[in-house]
């Protein structure tokens, strides 16, 4: 029987079948989209739906056009799901981490190299500038741009890589561990400034070693695994002669992140303390709170009230980026002259 559609019916049919064809043609891309969603019902459902879609698409060889196009534009690995935490150095011998004391009104903290006398600091010049690589989640972008604006001939920002919603907890979303192996060869940085953790502060973690399980955010097992990753990254880069700057997470607006961000900050800070000569921690939380330790969208800079945070209560404005960049350079000055 032939069904005769009116125009509206035809519109619905074209929409439905068109989306179905598009889904089959980019099934692997959809599969990755499903994989990288936050843990929960929506992700489980998306994974269940995309599994047969990928199977059908591969059977019919419908994945080929997208693969060929990706190959032609140099983005052939875009649909690949890589959950491996690539850390080649063996874990360090168990030593208790330096405890981080909490005072009633802490000052912005940073861990510097107290042992390095000024004369031993390597000198960088305009002919041989200090190469800085900035990377991380969306919070890395503004401080990275601020560092790019710094007018110092002996300083060269070789890359600002900010990837939305990524971090060290979800290599399936974007594998920073792979990138951290490639970037030192490609960009030859001497300093790496990292901003991670805002998108890691949740219960789910991908790439956990076989046989291990990780509990919810803040549990001993979660903190141990996250510390293993932060520490592993620090040691891998240090081994390549790269000084690592960990940017702490800023004080957020609203109650949710106020509990989770400090968990990440404590780990970042304790790792920096464990490698005092080769890494440092920049405390943005206390840099951007008000006199009472509360979230402050505006701060006075040189007497002028200046907007520091975007309306989402997390991200920085350019002015906040400038403050962070100045602090980063101040701390890097402890180890390098430029």
């Amino acid at each position, binding site marked *: 029987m032939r069904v005769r*559609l*009116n*125009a*509206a*019916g*035809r*519109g*619905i*049919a*074209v*929409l*439905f*079948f*068109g*989306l*179905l*064809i*598009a889904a*089959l*043609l*980019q099934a692997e*891309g*959809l599969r990755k*989209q499903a994989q990288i969603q936050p843990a929960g019902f929506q992700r489980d459902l998306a994974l269940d739906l995309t599994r047969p879609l990928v199977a059908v698409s591969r059977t019919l060889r419908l994945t080929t*056009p*997208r693969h060929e*196009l*990706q190959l032609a*534009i140099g983005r052939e690995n*875009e649909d690949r799901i890589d959950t491996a935490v690539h850390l080649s150095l063996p874990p360090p011998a168990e030593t208790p981490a330096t405890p981080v004391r909490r005072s009633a009104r802490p000052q912005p903290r940073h861990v510097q190299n107290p042992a390095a006398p000024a004369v031993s600091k390597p000198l960088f010049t305009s002919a041989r500038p200090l190469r800085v690589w900035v990377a991380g989640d969306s919070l890395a972008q503004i401080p990275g*741009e601020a560092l*790019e*604006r710094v*007018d110092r001939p002996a300083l060269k*920002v070789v890359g600002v890589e900010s990837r*939305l919603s990524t971090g060290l907890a979800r290599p399936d979303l974007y594998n920073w561990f792979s990138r951290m192996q490639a970037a030192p060869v490609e960009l030859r940085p001497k300093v790496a400034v990292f901003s991670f953790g805002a998108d890691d502060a949740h219960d789910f973690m991908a790439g956990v070693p076989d046989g291990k399980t990780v509990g919810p955010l803040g549990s001993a097992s979660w903190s141990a695994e996250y510390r293993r990753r932060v520490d592993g990254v620090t040691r891998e880069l240090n081994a390549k002669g790269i000084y690592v700057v960990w940017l702490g997470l800023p004080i957020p*607006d609203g109650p949710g992140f106020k509990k989770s961000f400090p968990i990440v900050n404590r780990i970042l800070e304790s790792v920096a303390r464990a490698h005092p000569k080769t890494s440092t921690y920049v405390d943005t939380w206390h840099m951007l709170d008000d006199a009472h330790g509360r979230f402050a*969208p*505006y701060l006075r800079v040189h007497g*002028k*009230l200046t*907007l520091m945070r975007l*309306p989402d209560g997390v991200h920085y*404005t*350019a002015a906040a980026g400038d403050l962070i960049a100045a602090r980063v350079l101040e701390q890097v000055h402890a180890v390098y002259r430029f």
Partner: protein
Amino acid sequence: MLFPTVTFAVFFLIVLPVSWALMRHQSVWRAWILLASYVFYAWWDWRFVLLLAASTVVNHVLAVAIHRTAAIGARKVLLGLAIAFDLGFLGYFKYANFFLSTTDNVAGTSFIAHVVLPVGISFYSFMAISYVVDTYRGELVPASFARFAVFQAFFPHLVAGPIVRASELLPQLARPRDPRQVDVSRAFLLIVSGLFLKVVIANHLATSIVDEVFAAPDRHSSLEVLFGIYGYAVQIFADFCGYTNIAIGIALLLGFEFPQNFASPYTAVSLQDFWRRWHMTLSRWLRDYLYIPLGGNRKGSLKTYRNLMLTMLLGGLWHGAAWTFVVWGGIHGLGLCVERATGWRPTSSAAQWLGRIVTFHVVCFAWIFFRADSFARAWEVIRRLFTAWGAPSPLVTTSVLLAILVGIGGQYVRPGAIAAVNAGFRRLSLAGQAATFGVSLMLINTLGPVGVAPFIYFRF
């Protein structure tokens, strides 16, 4: 909920067939489409829905009161109340931070506010103002509450326009749409062209050159800065025109006709011509509810210039709560005044081409203030434009040049060619149309940068 996402595709796959199934039962249909629109809006933040509902209730009550009141004085008071409510509503959410921080800086006070801007508030507030003003003028009989609620919240136009007039949409909401009269071919071409403009052109230019140039102009050569500015001109066109194309296409599939919002703006031969082609629904809103009530061009030359400047300055402020937007509006206002004073009306082909080049560059110059996050950054961009010629320009790549060329060149495509593509698509079988649509989506998604950037005009 953003249009180019899987979430929206699933949402629309449910909403569209149910909408047509319920179309004959108008009261049920209105409830359905209102629910769908509120879900669409609540996807950002459910609290925004309360604001939208409050705006609907207050404007409806006042419009009905205006309609039922005969005394001129009382009508004026009611109109004043409605406009004060809408502008107060918009002013609080959009401008509280701006004015309080400016006051704090000037007076040394500490009135700091931290108000979150609800998505699309400028658009639905302007639609509400036009509704009550048209009712006051006697050009409109207030609709039932349900119809007005759908008019204001209808999800295709809700967050970034086009700014649809009550006289355009309410009559369409008065009776069931005819399922035989849906222009399917045009709808899908608009959706595909909108997605291409947004996902491929706008996102590519933003990530490849524009964001980098405007973040640190001093790190870039003059050539990169120049193409960063051209790139932004194309990016904002592709972003906004792309969004409204998708919105118009979606509305068409639901059986509704929205007004055109862009007509090849970078082919304009003068600024006056530009404003007839750029964000057309805002231009005519400003003309009908601001410029003409101010007196328009009927009260002598000086007042005409004043009215032009005021309209453009306030138009600038509508876009964003920052002085850079005011300057952007000021440049356009000044340009319009100069054109008026000199009587610039290019007629010959050579004069028109000269007009196009000059207009495009004046518009690009104004975009610098629109895009820069501060005056200091805008001046850096302008200064760098003249001081770093000859430096390496790695950001000016073939793909950037191609995107700019497509973004501008596409505006010179003759309407006949677009009509031919439309006719070609219409002739295809259902399978052919679905395959063309599906393959186009795959190509767009593969060619566009990873991730979905928010539309620029959401924050306005």
